[in-house]
């Protein structure tokens, strides 16, 4: 393939992808299962700085609590089948009483009163051990 042809294709593919997939459309639904940590190895508690739209603080990661699979809901397709999350129980150093937010999702519009942080979910690969 010539360089010129490759460049045309790359630009076309990138433009098509950007046009077809708005940011939120690439985010799957996730079904999260309560998980028991086998402690192989033992999770070492750690504290790291975190920053989101509500607060910047140090966050203690206490233990893994949930494993989340991308899920099809009512027949909707799974967009990224390899995207999994492991969610850890956390405790923020800074006490925080969050804002009121209005949220729109497929269940409608909800007004929410945000309270303290409970989990931090980290992307990772997943293998089912036979």
């Amino acid at each position, binding site marked *: 393939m010539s360089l010129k042809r490759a460049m045309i294709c790359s630009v076309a593919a990138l433009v098509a992808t950007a046009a077809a997939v708005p940011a939120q459309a690439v985010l799957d639904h996730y079904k999260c*299962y309560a998980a028991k940590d*086998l402690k192989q190895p033992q999770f070492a508690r750690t504290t790291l700085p975190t920053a989101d739209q509500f607060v910047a603080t140090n966050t203690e990661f206490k233990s893994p609590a949930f*494993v989340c699979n991308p*899920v099809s809901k009512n027949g909707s397709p799974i967009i990224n089948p390899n995207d999994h999350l492991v969610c850890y129980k956390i405790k923020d150093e800074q006490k925080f009483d969050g804002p009121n937010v209005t*949220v729109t999702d497929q269940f409608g519009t909800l007004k*929410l009163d945000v309270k303290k942080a409970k989990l931090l979910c980290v992307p990772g*690969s997943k293998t089912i051990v036979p």
Partner: protein
Amino acid sequence: MSVKSLLVGCAVVGVALAFAAPSHAALDHYKCYKIKKDVLVNQASALTADQFGSETVSIKKAFLWCNPVSKDGSGILNANDHLLCYKVKGANLATPPHIASTNQYGLQQLYAKKPFLLCVPGNKVIIP
């Protein structure tokens, strides 16, 4: 340049692009906050299908709001992607899958037990 050769070339580039970036490289970390809400969920159940099987779960209440978060200076990839997580009730997994997950904390070995949350993408507006 013929149309056919251009199409073949584009297919090659498309496949290469698809394999170039593992999908979870584009997935943010999420920090999830407990919430109180003022209205009930209208939809009482949803049919779900994932790698552990298919089932209809009962949707109980909105429970967590998740923001994309920068952890240890990692940055946020998609600042507009949020998740609203509903507590759900489903069946315990008959044979709890033994999962080995690798992330930046290393290897986590877990047993998945029962479904607890269904997280749905959503838009957010902060009320002044």
